[in-house]
């Protein structure tokens, strides 16, 4: 690896992250996400009356279906639309560096959003006895799942110049991957396909981690998923030539 390879990614990453916070869209989406998430969660929380976060982590994947495409929609589409992509990709950087920086920038942004949701576990912890282990595990799982959605969303953003198309298509794609491992789908699909679908679905892997079980199988799944879509993303970017 060339010296300074990571440094260049870091510089691009800073630019990406700054880009999120320079745009009002980011604040609006974080704000809306937090309000809706808190409301939906605490709405049932006080009815059930248990200091438990299970419902929260059932809710989170659904919220991600909208939050993550909102994070990724701009990424490539905006660069293509404004023409800055030409400028970006003629800098002395490789396509991989550009793709990785965009991914890491989006991941950091997601991480910050998740940090802001920590008010919920702290609130609950102050209300009753909670087990920290599963909560930490679930947050880790949420980050993994988020990373998978992000790579998918970034790939879709690289296909279009239009942010709205990127958003809607990413919601649809995330939904497909979320749903494909769902019990309902798996049960009604042909026997041969069932384990395959179960493995493919993003949601099923999240359930494992959310239960506090960090299995290498799930980790490998997420890492391969992310890598695959980042790789396709890089190939799409290279297609311009």
């Amino acid at each position, binding site marked *: 690896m060339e010296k300074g390879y990571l440094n260049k990614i870091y*510089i*691009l990453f800073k*630019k990406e992250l*700054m*880009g999120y916070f320079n745009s009002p869209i980011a604040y609006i989406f974080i704000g809306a996400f937090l309000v809706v998430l808190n409301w939906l969660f605490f709405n049932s929380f006080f009815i059930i009356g248990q200091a438990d976060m299970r419902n929260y982590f059932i809710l989170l994947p659904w919220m991600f279906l909208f939050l993550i495409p909102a994070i990724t929609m701009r990424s490539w589409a905006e660069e293509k639309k*404004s023409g*800055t992509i030409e400028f970006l990709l*003629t*800098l002395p950087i490789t396509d991989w560096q550009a793709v990785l920086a965009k991914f890491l920038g989006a991941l950091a942004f997601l991480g910050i959003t998740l940090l802001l949701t920590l008010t919920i576990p702290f609130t609950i912890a102050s209300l009753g006895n909670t087990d920290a282990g599963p909560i930490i595990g679930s947050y880790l799982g949420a980050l993994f799942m988020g990373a998978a959605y992000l790579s998918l969303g970034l790939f879709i953003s690289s296909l279009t110049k239009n942010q709205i198309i990127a958003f809607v298509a990413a919601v649809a794609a995330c939904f497909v991957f979320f749903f494909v491992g769902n019990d309902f789908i798996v049960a009604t699909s042909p026997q041969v396909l069932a384990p395959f679908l179960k493995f493919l679905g993003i949601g099923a892997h999240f359930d494992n981690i959310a239960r506090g079980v960090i299995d290498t199988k799930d980790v490998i799944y997420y890492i391969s998923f992310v890598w695959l879509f980042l790789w396709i993303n890089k190939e799409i970017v290279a297609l*311009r030539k």
Partner: protein
Amino acid sequence: MIRVENLSKKIGETQILDSINFQINDGEILGFLGPNGAGKTTTMKIITGFWTPSSGNIFVDEKNVIENSLEIRSKLGYLPENVPLYDEMKVYEYLKFIAEIRGIAKEKIKDSIKSVVNSCGLEKVIKKPIEELSKGYRQRVGLAQSIIHKSDIIVLDEPTTGLDPNQIIEIRNLIKEIGKDKTVIFSTHILSEVQATCDRVVIINNGRITGQGTPSELMQAAGSRETVYVKIRGPKEIIKEKLKEIEEIMEIMEKDREADDIFGYEIQPQTGADVREKLSMIVMQNNWSILEFSRKSASMEDVFRELTK
């Protein structure tokens, strides 16, 4: 030195560049001239490594730009058409980002930014977001970005498009200033720009190079296409016959008709020949009379039109 060799680019079924060859010497300001859609932008995109050619090569200092893309990109400054910039960044943030990604050492970044802010006249707007800048200032930020890393070669794609006349002159002067110690290649379809700024011109049309040389060389070459217009009272056929006897006249064309015995003729003399005196002698000898006489020498516009037909 940049050497473009048999460069071709085909996108789908369209042949955008058809085996073009030219050379840019060190320290030269080269104007890349051609009508819209001629292939200027495509050539620049290939030089800067954004696209790859379908066939052919570009060498920068004897290094192939496809094989040594990263190395050459780091020597190059590029301002794409329409000046795409990260609008939401402030000018200072943007230049800092460029300085960092271009690998300027940390302790030198401030000085580098200062120096380009100075040379591009950006002092007033340094804290403003780029989206609030006027077109002229955007262009300057674009230029600043392209020279911040002390690049040897600057590629500018239509840097004066969309500017008002004052801004055009400012940017042109800036390009000249930059060009003093760098190789600059810039494209344009504005002819006066070429005359005002360039050391050498390459004219491209329909993906082919149709002419190259210094502006004055091109004008001289086109000077052979000088024409003489003359309006003579007298019998048309005999006039034509007599004029054809003058050796230096290559072609005589009837241009217009004012009356039954008054016709206008367009005469194409041989290169460099002056036919005026011989012409008037013949007219006098035959007792005709000259009613109008004018000589049209080629301008840059003619050169352009001739070479991009």
